[in-house]
């Protein structure tokens, strides 16, 4: 096609747009093509044996915690438990890389991370038992409430880290989310805010293969979830989520970067959920045994144990010691969870507002009357009514 020039009129010549170049060179932000590994590679020579042994005992304890909590669902002591069996390396590393002043923002699957950070296992389980939404004071432990809506805790982590920075505190927030959660709008908004504000946040995506039943291939068309970081202007790191040493190293680097003012990092941990989504899910409907078995060979506890025994850092005594410690923890948890929680129904009205509204006071008075009437007629209630609403 030719431009027809009118006689006598100046021809239109498009001017080039003003020069534009990318604000940030994307190359350093790109993740490695393969998940970063330490165990079974040359990098393990640089790993601190003390740290590896610590990680091992935490993994053993974490695995036992997961199996015990799952057992508690079968006994009716927990309403539901989203197990992190197979993902313990992510959970433990996330807890261990943080200083006391830092904050953890867990999702509903990350009870173990909260426990590994030092939270009382029973307090950590109240949400899943069904007696309290959050059984601990988040400020005391610097652990945000376990978050059930997907990815909505991520902007909270950004806001908190931003506020800490404004106050001059070198506090880092580490926020955990699953692969499914990366599709949510709040994931995008949180990463964007964090990068623009250079907030000291670490985003840890545990890519465990499935969002309930939907596999990653139906979740995203991105080369990897870590690649999403580039579009926000932050580095993305891809790491073997079953390699506790690699997880600890990558997260430590991201935390150090955030603390020194370097801004946020997106870490994708490639891992696998060995159990179903929760005890209420039937995983055989969407994945085959062979896939699960292949991952079993790459079990986080087993590969670290093999590394440590192979290098002579761990013997039968050490293995037995870790096992006994985990068993003690499980026994205590079992015993304490077998006690019925004592609940005051009047608490339903206690924490809606700082000061109860007239309307809530009236409703509380109505419940008081009903409770008093129940007191007068205890025989109407069955013996196994534990007051948990189940």
């Amino acid at each position, binding site marked *: 096609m030719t431009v027809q020039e009118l006689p006598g009129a100046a021809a239109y010549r498009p001017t080039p747009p003003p020069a534009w170049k990318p604000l940030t060179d994307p190359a350093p932000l790109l993740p490695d093509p393969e998940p970063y590994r330490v165990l079974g590679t040359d990098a393990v020579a640089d790993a601190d044996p003390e740290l590896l042994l610590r990680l091992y005992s935490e993994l053993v304890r974490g695995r036992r915690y997961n199996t015990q909590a799952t057992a508690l669902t079968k006994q009716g002591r927990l309403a539901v438990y989203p197990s992190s069996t197979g993902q313990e390396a992510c959970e433990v590393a996330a807890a261990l890389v943080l200083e006391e002043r830092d904050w953890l923002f867990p999702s509903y699957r990350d009870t173990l991370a909260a426990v590994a950070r030092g939270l009382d296992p029973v307090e950590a389980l109240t949400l899943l038992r069904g007696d*309290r939404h959050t059984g601990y*004071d988040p400020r005391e432990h610097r652990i*945000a409430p376990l978050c059930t809506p997907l990815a909505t805790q991520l902007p909270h982590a950004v*806001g908190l880290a931003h506020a800490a920075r*404004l106050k001059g505190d070198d506090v880092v927030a580490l926020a955990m989310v699953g692969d499914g959660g990366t599709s949510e709008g709040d994931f995008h908004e949180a990463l964007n805010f964090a990068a623009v504000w250079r907030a000291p946040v670490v985003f840890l995506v545990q890519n465990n293969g499935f969002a309930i039943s939907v596999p990653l291939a139906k979740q995203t068309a991105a080369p990897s979830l870590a690649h999403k970081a580039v579009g926000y202007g932050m580095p993305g790191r891809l790491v073997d989520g079953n390699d506790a040493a690699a997880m600890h190293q990558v997260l430590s680097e991201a935390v150090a970067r955030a603390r020194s003012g370097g801004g946020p990092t997106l870490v994708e941990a490639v891992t696998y959920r060995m159990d179903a989504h929760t005890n209420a899910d039937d995983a055989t409907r969407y994945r085959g045994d062979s896939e699960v078995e292949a991952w079993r060979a790459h079990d986080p506890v087993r590969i670290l144990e093999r590394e440590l025994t192979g290098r002579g850092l761990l013997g039968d005594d050490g293995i037995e010691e870790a096992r006994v410690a985990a068993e003690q923890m499980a026994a205590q948890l079992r015993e304490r969870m077998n006690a019925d929680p004592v609940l005051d129904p009047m608490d339903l009205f206690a924490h809606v507002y700082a000061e109860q509204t007239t309307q809530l006071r009236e409703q509380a008075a109505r419940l008081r009357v009903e409770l008093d009437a129940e007191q007068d007629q205890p025989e109407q209630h069955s013996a196994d009514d534990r007051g948990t609403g189940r």
Partner: protein
Amino acid sequence: MTTAAATARERTAKAKPATMAQALGRALRDSMVEDPSVHVLGEDVGTLGGVFRITDGLAKEFGDERCTDTPLAEAGILGAAVGMAMYGLRPVVEMQFDAFAYPAFEQLISHVAKMRNRTGGAMPLPITVRVPYGGGIGGVEHHSDSSEAYYMATPGLHVVTPATVEDAYGLLRASIASDDPVVFLEPKRLYWSKADWSPQAPAAVEPIGRAVVRRPGRSATLITYGPSLPVCMEAAQAAVEEGWDLEVVDLRSLVPFDDETVAASVRRTGRAVVVHESTGFGGPGGEIAARITERCFHHLEAPVLRVAGFDIPYPPPMQERHHLPGVDRVLDAVARLQWEADN
């Protein structure tokens, strides 16, 4: 400056009527001066001073760390505010327009409203969410919604809406000082309404949760709030010619709801009309009418009536005058009250 000069300047300032927009701006400024933990954030609140200029001058005076232009993302703005409040700040968030707040609903409902309750009282969130709301300014689609019923239906939120310049200041100060989250609904068609109120003179902070009788009367009570208050005041004035002496109650706070003031008024007058521009079906008027009926049934001479916007999506600006309840529609309802009483 001498004291005499200062006094003279103050007198001049007093003589000049102030707008609701100015009162809101001063409330933000005074709160930020008094409490360093107060932070303003939102889209365009900094350099531009907000599309309605409510935050004008704040970024210049307090810096962009106290008055922050955020990325354009309402869930992100409110979500970040949650984290800021968790760390001890007192964020004031601007949602720019009513319908722009909808992407932030999950943050508002699942987190802002519930954090105190979820944590057994350990972690209250002192967040103020400013939402310019309602129609009458010729805004195109998505710029004129009245979304108060959505907020009212969410336990844990206070829902406040001023109708006067004084209340705009007093209630916003109280909202920012509140340890609970407040959805602060700003009737944008009243932004430029004026009153003899000096931005320089001392001003009162109004406690949240108290309705006020704007006009005493004996024949019937008009119960209203926000943008519909001037409509009701005008209707009450016009009704005098019909021989009706209408009382007008301005709710000011939808949550908590001031049952006492409303019931006391209706018991005096025996008749009530609830007036708002939000849709009637499932709207605030149904709740208010039910509360009045429960408390005042034996005092009522007629059913409680509602004058509301039609149950339609907010219409295009060239048609909005047909949707918004005006003086005639209010007077018509009052006439129906009289008719019911006669039969």
